[in-house]
């Protein structure tokens, strides 16, 4: 589609929906309080709005539509359609979060049940389902870490958080927001977070270690218990970012490795849809010692009924109300469709798929994986370094060309510790043929890069738009974060 911007479709006098008339005397607003000029919103009929947005949707490569194994670390798994039906039910969609408890027993029971499930999966004492996504869960964990140390009178002293380079940037960034100095461990020669660096960093100022395992490289750190113990010995807390939990469900548990806090991303491991980037949902699990600090309220069961209670030293609300309820419902339904055995099949199959895909990708000339001798669990961060050196074509460019074949991939977060990175995570949702097809597309693009680097560099060819010139996006004189800014700067 060659779809215009919605403002360009506007014609005066049209409208997309009717609004109820006041049926009561109008209220006059004084000057300066009332709006004097109507907002320059577009005016469209309903048919046009539908057509416009359906076209835009078709120009979006949802996980439903493609072999979505390329957004590594994102755990792009199938979000069962049946679970969407529950959240569209008015008995979820039309619930107000402050209804009397006795009118929401069903939804409270779901919260409670999902908490029990996540407690069992993590080994933790309690789990809060309030955070709106993974990073918010990291922030919530940091808030609890801060409250914990404050309660012990060590708020001032413990002002450092240690994390690793292959953990999500939000571990570092949220720690900073929570007031901590951030120490980042780089990988050692084996690709593991550097244990010596941790030994050097840890001490009386250590509030916590925030670590992912397996890290975004796909490598599981076998000495994780040592990491935890080192931090504990120094009086710090150990906090597990379980964004990559999909491959270890039912295999190993956060609490069993000694962690004090952890979080899951329900939109990754537990299948709730990624929704163009949220709403998502995070779940924070904590050990007994940290229960008093959990964000509130939590759902407790008393006999057959469920009630809301806030922990005594709660850090308060990380988000309004109880949480992203639709995703809590979906995650619960997903687990209930699988059970313990099913979750283990999820993990094992995801890991098998990942190793199978790695086997295929490593046969593509020019593709490599750092620390190739290490086992991989759920995803792999690969490198096109050889190909880039040979052809001058960068990983980003290969990814853009891959879009012409109806798939995509993600490189990695910055900085690119792995050069020319691309990160693949096939999860359990994709079939062997899907993985073969995906690898074949990468092989094809790599071959194109060798034969005709310019061709790849000028891709895409069959997307909605052609190669974007991004320079204006960083130039204050030109950038246009809204249509009105664009018209002012470029349409005068």
């Amino acid at each position, binding site marked *: 589609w060659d779809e215009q911007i919605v403002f360009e479709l506007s014609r005066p006098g049209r409208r997309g929906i009717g609004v109820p008339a006041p049926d009561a005397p109008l209220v006059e607003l004084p000057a300066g309080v009332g709006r004097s000029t109507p907002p320059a919103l577009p005016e*469209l009929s309903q048919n046009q709005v539908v057509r416009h947005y359906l076209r835009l949707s078709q120009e979006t490569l949802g996980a439903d539509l493609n072999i979505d194994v390329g957004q590594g670390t994102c755990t792009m798994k199938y979000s069962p359609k049946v679970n969407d039906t529950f959240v569209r*039910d008015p008995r979820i969609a039309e619930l107000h979060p402050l209804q009397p408890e006795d009118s929401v027993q069903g939804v409270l029971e779901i919260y409670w049940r999902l908490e029990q499930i996540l407690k069992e999966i993590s080994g933790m004492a309690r789990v809060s389902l309030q955070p709106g996504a993974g990073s918010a869960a990291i922030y919530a964990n940091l808030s609890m870490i801060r409250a914990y140390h404050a309660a012990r009178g060590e708020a001032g002293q413990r002002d450092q958080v240690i994390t690793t380079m292959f953990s999500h940037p939000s571990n570092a960034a949220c720690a900073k927001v929570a007031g901590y100095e951030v120490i980042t461990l780089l990988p050692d020669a084996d690709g593991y977070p550097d244990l010596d660096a941790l030994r050097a960093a840890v001490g009386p100022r250590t509030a916590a270690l925030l670590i992912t395992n397996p890290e975004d490289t796909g490598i599981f750190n076998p000495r994780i218990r040592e990491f935890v113990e080192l931090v504990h010995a120094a009086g710090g807390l150990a906090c597990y970012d379980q964004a990559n939990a999909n491959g270890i469900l039912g295999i190993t548990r956060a609490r069993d490795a000694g962690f004090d806090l952890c979080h899951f991303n329900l939109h990754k491991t537990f299948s709730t849809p990624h929704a163009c*980037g949220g709403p998502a949902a995070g779940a924070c699990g904590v050990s007994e010692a940290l229960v008093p600090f959990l964000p509130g309220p939590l759902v407790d069961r008393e006999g057959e009924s469920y009630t809301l209670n806030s922990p005594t030293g709660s850090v308060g609300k990380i988000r309004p109300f109880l949480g992203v309820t639709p995703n809590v419902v979906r995650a619960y339904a997903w*687990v209930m469709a699988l059970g313990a055995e099913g979750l283990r099949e999820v993990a094992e199959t995801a*890991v098998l798929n990942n190793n199978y895909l790695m086997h295929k990708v490593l046969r593509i000339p020019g593709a490599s994986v750092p620390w190739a001798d290490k086992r991989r669990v759920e995803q792999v961060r690969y490198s096109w370094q050889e190909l880039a050196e040979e052809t001058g074509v960068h990983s980003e460019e290969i990814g853009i060309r891959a879009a012409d074949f109806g798939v995509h991939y993600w490189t990695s977060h910055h900085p690119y510790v792995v050069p020319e990175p691309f990160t693949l995570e096939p999860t359990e949702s994709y079939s062997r043929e899907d993985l073969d097809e995906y690898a074949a597309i990468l092989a094809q693009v790599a071959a194109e890069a060798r034969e005709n680097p310019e061709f790849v560099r000028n891709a895409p060819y069959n997307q909605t738009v052609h190669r974007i010139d991004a320079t204006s996006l960083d130039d204050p004189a030109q950038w246009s974060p809204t249509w009105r800014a664009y018209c002012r700067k470029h349409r005068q």
Partner: protein
Amino acid sequence: MTHPYIPNAGPAARAAMLAEIGASSVEEFYGDIPADLRLARPLDLPAPFADEQGLVRHLRGLLARNTDTTEALSFLGHGCYPHHVPAVCDEVNGRGEFLTAYAGEPYEDHGRFQALFEYVSMMGELLEMDVVNVPTYDGFQAAGTALRMAARYTGRRKVLVSGAVAPDKLGTIRGYLAPDIEVLLAPVAESGEIGEVGLDDTFAALYLETPNVHGVIETRGRQLADLAHSVGALLVVGTDPISLGVLAPPASYGADLVCGDIQSLGMHQQYGGGQAGFIASRDEERLVAEFPSRLFGIAPTAVEGEYGFGDVFYDRTSFALREEGKEWVGTAAALWGITAGVYLALMGPQGMREIGETILARTRYAMRALASSGAVVLHQESLHFREFVLEVPDADALLAALRAEGIFGGVRISPWRVLVCVTERHSIADIDTLAAAVKDALSTSGDRT
């Protein structure tokens, strides 16, 4: 047979893949997990439903234990509002493409970028501001971030926050600012508006909400903006965009940053799952530099006339800079941004004006109806949008009595105060029903005491 969600789980498929890899079992891949960390038993989870209909029946059974706001007559608001959600909003956000997309590039996800760019652009028109972010989690978070932005912008570590803010929200703001920034409260006047404001040049910002937590419309915006600016502070205004078809956009009286929640614009209440935050500013490089969130902008492509999209000033985010970025950015609530865009495209300027007029008029009608029913209506002389406070002898007793009539009468905000919410979804008849029930309840309880 394999599970419907796991195509490769069958023994034959597994064996063939393992053979291809040259591995003997899946266990091999777990070789790095020490034995003492391995869970030696199956997880202790409830038995699953092997068939979809069993799952459906189980979930529907749980849902049946809820009474929703189409069954009860609900006057609950306080941050989550029962506005009408146009069917087209659900149609669009239910599309598999939007529902399951994530973080593709602006080529294969051109539609996602365009839809979000259009959302921020329509918000920009409503707000009369040139910069609006891709949604953050919710209005609480948006307020916290806006105040942090103000602190970084001004280099100051103190903010003054209107006392007429919801306690939960205030708590979240305090928590969010705690490490660096001191939060002071401005008093609330008799009228329900913000009271005397004491600012000096140590303050980064004044945070004002309108309509505020009690539904009162603040009328001194320009004066407060001037005051803040006179000491080099920013005016940060929290608002609900659904009011801006009739209320002056805060930028028009001098607000520097505007923030809030967009749940009103096409999101179902979802037991609190429909929240999403926005922050807006003028197009000033130093302010733009303080946004932690993603900003989407138009960019040219290799073909003249095409609209490409991309991230504006990416190198301020934690994606680019980890802890050196501004706060953090991550998955938040993009789909609700797309949905709010659909909402605004449907409504247009006329629809936004009409809905504002209707809510204003019905709110006033409701205040008068309830005042006639024997309750005390606070701040009666002030302008209200959508919410107002009832003062009664016993809030719990009143709400329980209403509940017995199938009415969720409002949010109890103190033992004797109830916050009542009226939107365009409440007909005059609904309001009369409430007023009659309140009258009954108050007179009955009067009899009892």
